[in-house]
């Protein structure tokens, strides 16, 4: 009994020591090279590991500043320009882009703005959560298709908790109280996960920027979206329009900001879409 006691103290003393060596590593302003050469991507911060690697690779020489610039440039070359998304339907896309732009500024934005002025944030948030909860089949199926069984399980838990305790999904109890989180999966991302490229760039009317792959994905997800089974179709469309307005009410000014910052708004929107989707496929 006594022995056990001392043994755990020893373990803790050891772990403190290990952790401290990691802290000292930080003090000397050198951090472990945890990254592969051109991918700064998503892994959780390795805590103890970094200390160990540091101890091993401490003595590496540092490159010149110009080399650093070149290295960073190479990072960008490796990520963006090597895979430009073709835009063979530029004129059609540009016309759709103009159409969407007008639709947004003349209808969606003013409606969403006045809707936002009338309904307080908690109410709008509840509606947003409700629609998010409804899309559970899309996320579940695509998690399974991507082999993310653990996330699929979490998705089920979130759905069950939010539909019951969260009152039909209006409240995000699972996320806020139980700290359950998953990435938003859809069929476009599933296809991307299986190394299917973007294909060509497409701007869809109303729906906005997309690619051939993601458009196919939208069709796939269509069948998993409960609202699409609402009869008659007028009601279904109405619900979707309401969802759109409600969602837009959280993003007022963002599209304007993007346009304001852009030299070439069409190109900026295209690139932003491609980059954003690429990030999502990775998750």
């Amino acid at each position, binding site marked *: *009994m006594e022995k056990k006691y001392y043994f755990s103290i020893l373990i803790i003393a050891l772990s403190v020591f290990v952790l401290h060596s990691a802290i000292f590593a930080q003090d000397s302003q050198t951090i472990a090279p945890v990254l592969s050469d051109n991918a700064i991507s998503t892994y959780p911060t390795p805590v103890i590991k970094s200390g160990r690697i540091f101890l091993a690779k401490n003595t590496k020489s540092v490159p010149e500043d110009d080399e650093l*610039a070149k290295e960073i440039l190479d990072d960008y070359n490796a990520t963006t320009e090597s895979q430009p998304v073709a835009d063979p339907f530029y004129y059609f896309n540009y016309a759709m882009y103009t159409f969407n732009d007008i639709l947004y500024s003349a209808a969606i934005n003013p409606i969403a703005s006045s809707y936002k002025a009338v309904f307080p944030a908690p109410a709008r948030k509840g509606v947003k959560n409700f629609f998010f909860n409804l899309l559970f089949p899309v996320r579940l199926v695509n998690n399974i298709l991507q082999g993310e069984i653990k996330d699929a399980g979490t998705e089920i838990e979130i759905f069950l908790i939010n539909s019951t305790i969260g009152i039909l999904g209006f409240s995000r109890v699972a996320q806020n109280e139980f700290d359950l989180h998953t990435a938003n999966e859809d069929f476009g991302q599933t296809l991307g996960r299986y190394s299917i490229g973007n294909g060509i760039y497409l701007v869809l009317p109303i729906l906005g920027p997309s690619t051939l792959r993601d458009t196919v994905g939208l069709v796939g997800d269509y069948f998993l979206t409960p609202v699409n089974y609402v009869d008659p179709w007028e009601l279904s469309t109405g619900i979707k329009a309401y969802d759109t307005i409600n969602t837009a009410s959280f993003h007022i000014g963002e599209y304007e900001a993007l346009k304001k910052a852009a030299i070439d708004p069409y190109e900026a929107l295209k690139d932003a879409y491609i980059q954003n989707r690429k990030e999502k496929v990775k998750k």
Partner: protein
Amino acid sequence: MKQSKIAVLVLIFFSACVFFSAQDALASPARDQLKLTIDQVLEILQDQSLKGEEHTKARRASLRRVIHERFSFAKMSQLSLARHWRKRSKEEKKIFIGLFGKLLEQTYISKMEAYTSEKVVYVKEFVKKKKAQVYTKIITDSVDIPIDYRMYKTKDGSWMVYDIVIEGVSLVGNYRSQFDQILQKDTYEKLLGELKKKIES
């Protein structure tokens, strides 16, 4: 017997505490320096004497001063022009940095101004030799906005931001494709003109 079990549990709990506090202490200099700047930005944005339309000029001036200490607009310009950068003379580069820097500054400031009362959390970070990426999130009551800062280490050991990634979209990457698109069709002078127009509007 029972007592020792409790003792073990308590010890495990303490070691867990040590573990998590150590995790916090592990923040890299890149993150510390970035945090210093962001804290200053938030302080200015929350400063009552600088709030409102009538103080916009003074507020922006303070923000600009703080941001310039940490953001390398020269590096951002170089990376955004990419292969077109080398073709420009030293004078042209200087002018470009001035113009483009102003646009980037405006973009970043207006993004931050939109979230004055929110808090910023530091999610994680990666450091690799002279490059680092610090992941932050602006937590608002309706959405979380991920903003990642890509940084490089200068010769004097300070870390400078060379790219801002907002919701998975890299600013440098975004301007890079715009500039490339324009320069494929038009002249450099045209691009400069567009930049000037943008800043004045």
